[in-house]
C-alpha cells in the first residue's frame, strides 16, 4: 500500500509548510481516495482575496496516474469550465509524472490562475472574453472571486445576471427598452459572445434582435 503511505506523507508535507497557504484534507477520514485542497488566489490578479477549493480524486494507480482535479469554487477563467469546474491543464493529463505531488499540482493550479492559456481554452466563452476585452474580463473574474471565493460570498445575495457574465448593462437596457425580457437578452448576448454594444454596429444589433424574436 505505497499509495496510502505516499498520500499520508504528502498531507504531512503540506502541514509542515504553512507558508504556502495551501490546505489539503480528507473529505472523510476513512476514504483516502477523496480529498479537498484549497489555495489562495494569486496577488495582483482578479483572483486575489479568494480561496479556491479543489475536489481531488486519487486513482488506485496513483502516483503513476494523475489525480483527478476540478474546482468546487466557481471560477471565471479561460482554462476552467465556468459550469463544471473542469480543468484543462497538461500536467493533470499526459504531462503527469510520478514526482508531481498533490501540493505541487495545487501550486500549478495557482500558477494557472496567474497566467491563463487562452489559446487552449476549456471555456470558450470566457476565453473569448479574455482575448477581446481584458479589462472587462478582469472585472468579471474579480466579481466571481468576490461572489464565490470569499468568506462574505454570494450566499443570500441576488446577483445581476448581466454583470455576472461581464455584459455591459447599457447593452441590456437597449434591448429591454424594446420590450425583450432580460433573461433572454443575457442568454443571447452570451451565446454571441457580445459583452459591449457599439451603437453604430447595426448589423450586430439586427442579428441580436433577429435571434431574440425567434
Amino acid at each position, binding site marked *: 500500500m505505497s499509495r496510502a503511505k505516499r498520500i499520508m506523507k504528502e498531507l504531512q508535507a503540506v502541514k509542515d509548510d504553512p507558508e504556502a497557504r495551501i490546505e489539503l484534507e480528507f473529505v472523510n477520514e476513512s476514504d483516502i481516495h477523496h480529498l479537498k485542497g484549497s489555495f489562495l488566489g494569486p496577488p495582483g490578479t482578479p483572483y486575489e482575496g479568494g480561496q479556491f477549493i479543489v475536489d481531488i480524486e486519487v486513482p488506485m494507480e496513483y*502516483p503513476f*496516474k494523475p489525480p483527478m482535479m476540478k474546482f468546487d469554487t466557481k471560477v471565471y477563467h479561460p482554462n476552467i469550465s465556468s459550469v463544471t469546474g*473542469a480543468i484543462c491543464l497538461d500536467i493533470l*493529463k499526459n504531462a503527469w*509524472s510520478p514526482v508531481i505531488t498533490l501540493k505541487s499540482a495545487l501550486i500549478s493550479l495557482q500558477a494557472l490562475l496567474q497566467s491563463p492559456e487562452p489559446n487552449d*481554452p476549456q*471555456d470558450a466563452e470566457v476565453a473569448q472574453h479574455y482575448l477581446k476585452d481584458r479589462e472587462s474580463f478582469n472585472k468579471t473574474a474579480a466579481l466571481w472571486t468576490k461572489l464565490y471565493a470569499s468568506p462574505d460570498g454570494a450566499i443570500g445575495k441576488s446577483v445581476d445576471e448581466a454583470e455576472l457574465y461581464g455584459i455591459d448593462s447599457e447593452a441590456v437596457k437597449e434591448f429591454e427598452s424594446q420590450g425583450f425580457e432580460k433573461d433572454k437578452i443575457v442568454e443571447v448576448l452570451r451565446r454571441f459572445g457580445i459583452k459591449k454594444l457599439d451603437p453604430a454596429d447595426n448589423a450586430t444589433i439586427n442579428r441580436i434582435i433577429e435571434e431574440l424574436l425567434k
Partner: protein
Amino acid sequence: MASDEEYSEAESDDSLYNYESRNTSVDLICPKNPNLTSDDSEFDIDEVDSSDYDEEDDIDNSLLATPVSPSTKKALSEGSVPNLKYECLTTKEIYEKMLKRINHLQPVFSIPPDDVLVLMQHYDWNEERLLEAWTEKMDELLQQIGLKSAEVNGSSDVRGIKHRNDFMCIICCEEKNTDTFSLECGHEYCLDCYRHYIQDKLHEGNIITCMDCSLVLKNVDIDQIMGHASSTKLMNSSIKSFVQKHHRNYKWCPYADCKHIIHLKDTSSLAEYGRLHYSPFVKCSEGHRFCFSCGFEIHAPADCNITSAWVKKAKKESENLNWVLSHTKECPKCSVSIEKNGGCNHMVCSNCKYQFCWICEGDWAPHGKSFYECTIYKNDDTKSKGAQEDPGKQLKKYTFYYRLFNEHEVSAKLDWKLGQTVGHKVKALQDRMGVSWIEGLFLIESIKTLNEGRTALKWSFAVAFYSDASHNLTKIFLDNQMLLAKAVEDLSELLQIKEPETIMKRKPEFYNKSGYVENRRTALMECGRDLLCKGICKPHDG
C-alpha cells in the same frame, strides 16, 4: 509418404493464394509512371496532394492509348486500380528496416546507434526532418531531446542500477533495502517504481524520460530496469504510431488478428482512379484481400463511396450499435471510436493525437464559439431534418436490399467452410483415385471463383440500393445481378458433391460453371462501373 503432408489443408490454402498472386500482382508493367520503381528512400513519405496532380485529363486516354496488358485488363474489369505497387510488411520488418537505415546513417551522427534510434523516434522516424534538424543544431538537439544532460556535473558513473540499504524512494515513500536506478541526472528511484512507471508507458510508443527531468531512458536502460527485452514492446508501439501517422501510405490489414501492414509507395494516382470509380484492392501475405482506400473487403462492383454509405447505413439501422452511437464518436481524422470519459470537451485522439471538440467534432485549434452552442452541430441537425425523402419508402427499399446483402454474407461464410472441406476432397482424390495434385487444382480454383462471385454479388446489392431504379441501365444491372446469383448458386451446389468419383466424372462441369461465374461477374462489374461513372448510382442519406 512425404507428399501426403504436403497436400494437407493448410498447404492447399496457400497454393490457392500463390496461384492468385501469379495471376494478378507479379510482372506488372507500369506504363504511366516509370519513376515509381526508384526505391532509394524507403520511408520517404511523399504525401502528394491530389490537387498537385496535373495529369488528370490524360488518364483515361493514356489508359486507352497504351497497349493494355492482360493483367491490367483484368484489374480494370474488376474495378481495381491496375499496376498498384505495394509491399506487405510487419511492424518487426519495418523496425528492422529502420535499424538498417540507422546503421547506414550512423557515420553522419558520430553518436552511438542507440542514440540515433532515440532521435529517429523523436522525429517520428522521419529521416529528412531529423537530418535537417541535426545539421542545424546538433548539441542543442541532444539536450532538447534529453540525450545529454544540461548540467555539466552529470557524470556517467551515477547512471545504472545500484543496491542501496535503507533507501527512501520519494515515489512510493517506502524506506527499504532495494535496487535503485538513476540516469546521469542523479534522480534515483527504487526499481519497483521505475518498472511501474515504464510499464504504463510502453504501449504509448513515446520516448520515456526520467520521472523528474527530460533525460531519456534508452532501450538498454529500459531492458536493464525491466529485466527483459521490454524495449521491443516500446519500439513496436512506436512503429504502430508511425503507421497510424502515415495512414495515407501505410494501412493495417483489416482482417481480425492479422498483423500485416500494406505499404503503398505512391498514392498520388489514387484520387484520380477513385474519381473513375476504381478502387485500390491489395492483398497481404496472409492472402487477405482488401481495399486500401476504405479498408473494407473487395467491394466491387461498388466503389468506396457506395461502400461507406452502405456500411454507415447498416450501422445506423442496427440496434446493437445504439450504445456506441450515443456514447462514442469517431475521431474525425482516423475514425477510431472514442469514448468520452471526463468533463473536458477538448478531446485528444489516443490513436492519431488529433485534437478536436467533442461537441462539433471540429479541429480544436481555431475553436472560438462557446462550447455549449457549437454552430456546426446545430447545422448538422437542421440539415438532417431538412432531407426530404419519403422515409418509409426508403426504409423498405433498404431493408429489402440489406436482407439480400446479409444473406450472401452468411452464405459466403458457409462457402468458406466449404473451402476447408475442399482440401480434404483434394486429398481424397489423390488417395483414392490416384489423381495428381495439379489435376485436383480445379476444385480449389472453383472455390476461389465462388468466393469472388459471392462477394461481388453481395456488394452489388449496395450498388442496386443507391441506383436510380427508373433508369434503363439499372434494369440491365439488375438482370446481370440475377444471372450472377444463379451462376453462383449453381456452382455452390456443384461444390457440395462429396464422392470423389462423381467429382472426377463431372470435372468439365466444374470448369464450365466456374467459367460462367467468372464471365457473369466481369459483366456485372463492368455494368456497375457504368452506373457509377454515369452518376446513376450515387450515395445519398436515405
